[in-house]
Each structure stands twice: as C-alpha cells, then as structure tokens.
C-alpha cells in the first residue's frame, strides 16, 4: 500500500535506530506522546525499548476514552436506562466502568457505531424514540460529529442529541507544562489531531516553555524520524517545532473541517480524568437544542472512580501501569477496572497487550 510500506520498511527502521543510538547526550531525553494511536504504535513495534538508552517515552492524555470522566460515563449509563432512549457510541466507551456499572451492563439499548453519522439513520428509523450519540474524541473526530449535527439541523431531525464530551488537545499540554512536577523535554505531537487542526497552535510549547515539539505520523519510520529530530535539537541546544508528517499535516490543518467545528461548537471549560478542570479545553454545542444535557434533566450523582485505579496519574505521565496493584491481575482487557485498560489505545491496554508485564 502506497504511503504505508515505505514507512514500515525494516531497513529504514534499522538504520534510523542505529543513528538514534549513536547520538551523544548527557542524559536520557523525556518525550511525551499525547496520542493513543502513537502509544499503540510505540508498544506494538517495541520502539520504547529499541531507543531506551537515549529516550524515555512517556504516555500522556492522548486516549479520548481514558480522559473522559467517570461522571460522563455515569450520565451516559443513566441516559441508557431511560426507556425512550437509544445510545449510539464508539465501541471503546461501552465497557468503561462508571460508578455503578458500565453501558454494557446497563440493560439499555446501546448501539455501537463506526461513524457518528450512522446515528442519524438510527434516529430517522426510530422516530418514536430519542437517539443520543456519545460525543467523545479530539480534533480528529470532532469534524465528523459537527457534520452530523449540522445534517440533523438541516434535515430537521428532532429526536437526535449528543452528550457533549469532545475535547481539544492544546490546553492539556499547557496544563502539563504548568505542572512543576512534570519533567518533559519534548512532545511528539499527535499526527491526526494536527491533520485537522494544524500545528501552529502548538508554538507556545517552544515560545513560552522552551521545549521541543515534533509532529509525527504513526508508522515506525515516522516515529523514529520524529524521535531523531527531537534528539538532534536537544543535543544542539535548539528549540523548535518541526512537522515530520507533512504528507498529511499542513500548518493550518484542514481549514474546512475546523471552520465547521467552530460553526457548530464553541470552546468551554471541561474536566479531564486525572488532569481535572482545564479552561477552554472542551467543546459545547452552540445550538443547545441538540444537547442531551439540556433535553434530559439528569440528577446529580456522586461519581467515583475505583479507589485503586491509577489511570488518572498514568494520563499525566506520573505513573506507569505496572505500578498499579490491579494491573494484569484484577484488571485486564476482559475485565477492565479503569478506562486505560478498556480502550485499545489506553496505556494499560497497550502495556498489557504487548506483554510488558512479563518483563
């Protein structure tokens, strides 16, 4: 396949690794990836281990399902328990435990969709019921949701709502950089988030915090190339932002998609699992009549995460899955206790799947 094979080529991988491992550095460089797909790729190909003499790769808040709060899950479960509601959702959310069970155990009508747009068809086929799409995801996912809402408006669909949970990536990166305990030298910027939003809005990482940032694709050659560029900059005392995924990422991203996002949504304060409330980090509908929160008055409930789950700390890069007492024993992908084990992109799931715990 064009655009894939060249960036998976083992010869290129080997040579890049050799160069990376010959770079002279006073100490290991701490690089945070903030995209669940990067986390998966890194673990799948074992990149973290191949570069471990030079680099410490830390997973950040890059998994949309993982950063979704338990309170959101609880509200989704409550909605699913209403007789006249059909929940449509990406598959990853279904097994995330809320305070009292998950969507998979709620007994409600919960339908997994591949694309948010499928929810509209379900709404039209079920005029006597209300369809609520669980809107989670970052910039990569939001344009499709915005288009779905826009179509619902244009077609006058009256029984379609979304439970707003979409978030954008720059604010949590700033929050992490503001945390005095976090020692991060560089960020691997999320390729597909930047495909939509561009990367210019990440310049603050360099200008205000003096760190390094490189936009990276997802194949092994892409990731190693990005790591190499980071190491060269750190070695030479340079600071900057570089785009190493230009085949998909333009400086301003996909303007048409971003314009649509801000036609339908506006930024608002939002809460992230682990990171807490972050100013202007979430997206709320401008037209409130499609908001599930407006339509259904949900009682306030006392939401609680599992007391032993370290997912919140893991999302900040402050803990590793193997430091959790439940990892691989009580908590496994078949029986997940926290979202980081549910989502295929969660750090715990990635560690588990690629046998990290056997080391």
């Amino acid at each position, binding site marked *: 396949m064009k*655009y894939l094979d060249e960036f998976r080529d083992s010869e290129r991988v080997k040579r890049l690794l050799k160069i990376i491992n010959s770079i002279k550095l006073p100490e290991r460089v701490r690089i945070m990836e903030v995209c669940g797909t990067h986390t998966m790729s890194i673990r799948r190909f074992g990149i973290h281990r191949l570069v471990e003499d030079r680099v410490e790769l830390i997973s950040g808040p890059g998994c*949309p399902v993982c950063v979704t709060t338990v309170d959101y899950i609880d509200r989704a479960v409550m909605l699913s328990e209403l007789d006249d509601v059909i929940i449509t959702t990406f598959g990853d959310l279904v097994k995330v435990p809320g305070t009292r069970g998950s969507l998979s155990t709620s007994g409600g009508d919960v339908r997994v969709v591949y694309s*948010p747009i499928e929810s509209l068809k379900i709404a039209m086929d079920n005029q006597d019921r209300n369809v609520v799409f669980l809107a989670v995801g970052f910039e990569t996912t939001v344009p499709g949701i915005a288009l779905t809402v826009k179509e619902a408006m244009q077609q006058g669909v009256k029984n379609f709502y979304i439970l707003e949970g979409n978030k954008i990536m720059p604010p949590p990166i700033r929050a992490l950089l503001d945390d005095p305990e976090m020692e991060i030298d560089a960020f691997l910027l*999320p390729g597909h988030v930047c495909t939509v939003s561009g990367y210019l809005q990440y310049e603050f990482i360099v200008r205000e915090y003096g760190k390094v940032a490189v936009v990276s694709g997802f194949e092994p050659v892409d990731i190693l190339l990005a790591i190499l560029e980071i190491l060269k900059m750190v070695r030479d005392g340079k600071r900057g932002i570089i785009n190493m995924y*230009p*085949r998909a990422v333009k400086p301003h991203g996909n303007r048409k998609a971003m314009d649509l996002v801000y036609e339908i949504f506006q930024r608002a304060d939002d809460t992230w699992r682990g990171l807490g409330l972050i100013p202007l980090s979430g997206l709320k509908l401008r037209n409130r009549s499609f908001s599930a929160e407006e339509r259904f008055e949900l009682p306030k409930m006392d939401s609680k995460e599992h007391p032993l789950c370290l997912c919140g700390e893991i999302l900040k890069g402050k803990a590793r899955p193997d430091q959790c007492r439940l990892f691989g024993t009580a908590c496994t992908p078949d029986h997940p206790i926290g979202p980081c084990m549910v989502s295929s992109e969660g750090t715990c799931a990635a560690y588990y799947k690629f046998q990290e715990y056997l080391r």
Partner: protein
Amino acid sequence: MCLGVPMKIIEVNRELGMAKAEISGFIQNIRIDLLDEVSAGDYVIVHAGFAIQKLNEKDALETLKLIEEIFFDDEVSG
C-alpha cells in the same frame, strides 16, 4: 481513537459528498465533504467514516528523500 487509515479513492459522488475508498482490497463508503477536492486515484486519511485530509505525494517523497539524506550524512560522518 484518532486512528486514521490511508485509503485510495475509487469513485466519487460529489452530490452526496460520498466516495468509495479502498485499502488492501477492502472497499468502504466514506464521506468526503470535509475536503475541498477529491478525485479517483487520490489517497486520503479516513477516520470514523470521514476523509479528513488528502495525502500529498510530493510531501511523502520529500520525507523519504530527507531520510536518504540523513543516511548519507551518517555514512559520511560515521
């Protein structure tokens, strides 16, 4: 969840904002209304049923060239 898959456009229906796209013999209907211009033969990144960007061949080749330069420098200096 930000997984994006490169797919090749087979057939475009602009009116519906849809296209047929292919990867490894698997064909899927996708929405292309987030992009300005798409034609058969283009490669796009598909996420949750939407093409979110066209892949640019020139830039892909640039990156591969850059890698060759890195290897060349390494051989010269190493």
